[in-house]
């Protein structure tokens, strides 16, 4: 496989992103390595071809934002909003992720090996998010669709006002948000979980060690008795 190296100490990010937005025919299957990212924001955002990008270090905000098709690996940690609004492809953070990781992502897979901050998978719209460590408070807030797997613990208000997304947590949950409840894991959900564990490098983790959470669907329609929850 052909590999291209960009050094952000020498080349402006604008040029690197512009290159990565090039015609898919020229990028599909190519490997691109980005060196000296040094926490720059918006690295590898808006990709739309099956290119493999490796970021050799820490990324700032919105790394791989709105990703389509590409496989992006961040060898360090990622700032806020990594893979925000991703449509497809894979984003793998080998370190930690800050707040709002995978926010509003519609498709694709986000894997975070370490912990993630507040509001992980907020307003998730269909993507799969797997966190090897723990997640902060208000994660899966208003999550609409998709699957959210946490191998560690979850903070306060997990799944507040959640819609149809599925949440699986192995560790402790500090508290559940409004309208979020424990679900019994059915065969279909278990299959999703097993599949995601395998895809994210946690093949040996037992699906039975997880508890599933989802919407109690009591806030789907305005009702006077819910006034305090709105």
């Amino acid at each position, binding site marked *: 496989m052909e590999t291209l190296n960009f050094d952000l100490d020498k080349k402006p990010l604008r040029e690197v992103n512009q290159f990565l937005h090039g015609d898919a025919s020229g990028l599909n299957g190519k490997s691109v390595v980005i060196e000296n990212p040094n926490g720059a924001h*918006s690295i590898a955002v*808006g990709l739309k071809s099956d290119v493999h990008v490796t970021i050799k270090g820490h990324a*700032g905000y919105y790394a791989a934002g709105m990703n389509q098709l590409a496989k992006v690996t961040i060898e360090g940690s990622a700032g806020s909003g990594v893979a925000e609004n991703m449509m497809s492809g894979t984003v793998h953070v080998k370190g930690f992720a800050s707040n709002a990781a995978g926010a509003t992502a*519609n498709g694709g897979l986000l894997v975070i090996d370490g912990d993630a901050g507040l509001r992980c998978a907020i307003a998730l719209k269909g993507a799969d998010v797997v966190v090897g460590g723990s997640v902060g408070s208000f994660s899966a807030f208003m999550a609409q669709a998709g699957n959210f797997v946490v191998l560690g613990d979850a903070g306060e208000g997990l799944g507040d006002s959640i819609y*149809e997304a599925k949440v699986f947590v192995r560790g402790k949950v500090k508290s559940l948000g409004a309208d979020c409840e424990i679900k019994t894991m059915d065969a279909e959900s278990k299959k999703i979980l097993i599949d995601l564990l395998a895809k994210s490098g946690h093949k040996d983790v037992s699906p039975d060690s997880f508890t599933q959470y989802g919407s109690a669907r009591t806030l789907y329609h*305005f*009702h006077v008795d819910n006034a305090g929850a709105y």
Partner: protein
Amino acid sequence: MSDDKSTDTIHKTPQTTPRQSATFDAYTNSEIRRSAATGIYDIRGGGSKRKLPHFDDLLFLGASVSRYPLEGYREKCGTDVVLGARFAKKPIHLRTPVTIAGMSFGSLSGRAKEALGRGASAAGTSTTTGDGGMTQEERGHSTTLVYQYLPSRYGMNPDDLRKADAIEVVIGQGAKPGGGGMLLGQKITKRVAKMRCLPEGIDQRSSCRHPDWTGPDDLEIKINEIREITDWEKPIYVKIGATRPYFDVALAVKAGADVIVLDGMQGGTAATQEVFIEHVGIPILAAIRPAVKALQDLGMYRNGKNSVQLIVSGGIRNGADVAKAIALGADAVAIGTAALIALGDNDPHLEAEYQKLGTTAGAYDDWHEGKDPAGITTQDPELMKRIDPVKAGHRLANYIAVMTMEAQVVARACGKSHLHNLEPEDLVALTIEASAMAQVPLAGTNWIPGVTKF
């Protein structure tokens, strides 16, 4: 001891005329009864319905001995606007300063969106998507389409981002600054639900804060991300509801906005709580000058390539309003409610149907219920058929043309060869309130409350 009733009546204390309370007026009382019966707040569409200080409280000083006017029709009075030339490779060029405000597909039918696109394109102006994503109806028929980037991110995707001509980051709306979107079950049809990735028929409450940034420092990084995704081609607007316009505009500009959209409390909404519409935010009249001052203080006001444009909205109805908004410092205006009326919303010819809904033409505002007899604020497939996108689009184009010509009439009378040459010095105020808010003198005096001594 008399049992003669007639003499009894004569000697009784005279009755006073029954008097309704100004405080507890008929509408207020009906609202109390409605609340008592239902236990839930009132939700409606439209903007503030109370009388507020507005553009009607301002007048133009036409040219006379001290200044000379331009000849109507013969001498040129330009109306074109360039928006977002600060960073974008492809700024927006419009033939008229009257733009169409963001109104979501979902709140409006697909055919209404198509009509807006057709009308605006014919008139040489832009339309704006809304909370719920971009539809083919609108992209296909709008020459210039502004794509909204909202807290809910419903329907947000990079393909549509690239298809847009400009991107509008929505922080708030004049009707509900600090509030999120709302779309009730009747309008969450299969298509709307799919675009928003929600279960069909639920009462959608969308978030009021963006999911992946908080505060102006983050906004700067967010704007930069959108520029990177779209290769710095498109202008980035930031829309704010009018509350603290000086600070909000200054922060948005520092965060990198190319264009500020400032929406006053008269601005319409598809649906929100009545209490929000009537009691949060300030009238557009009070918001324009502080916004312009912020741009001036930052050196970004009409300063060549280094300019940030200001679009204002909230109760714009005619060419006089357009001219007044521009004279106070706006570069362009946006219309929502007025555009819907031009398409046929609240039309008296549908009076019988409005009566059936317990309302009357002009007052119909239960847009969230999706029963609009005009086929505009609905997702009902039968009702939708009532709007003919070609004819309605034509009416909208006519209306925008009239507004533009009216603004030109005023500008020529003031001796201006371009609408943008109108200035606050061309205006006076009819009321002390309007004088203070718009910072133009009370008619016949040199007095601007808060600025000069009486």
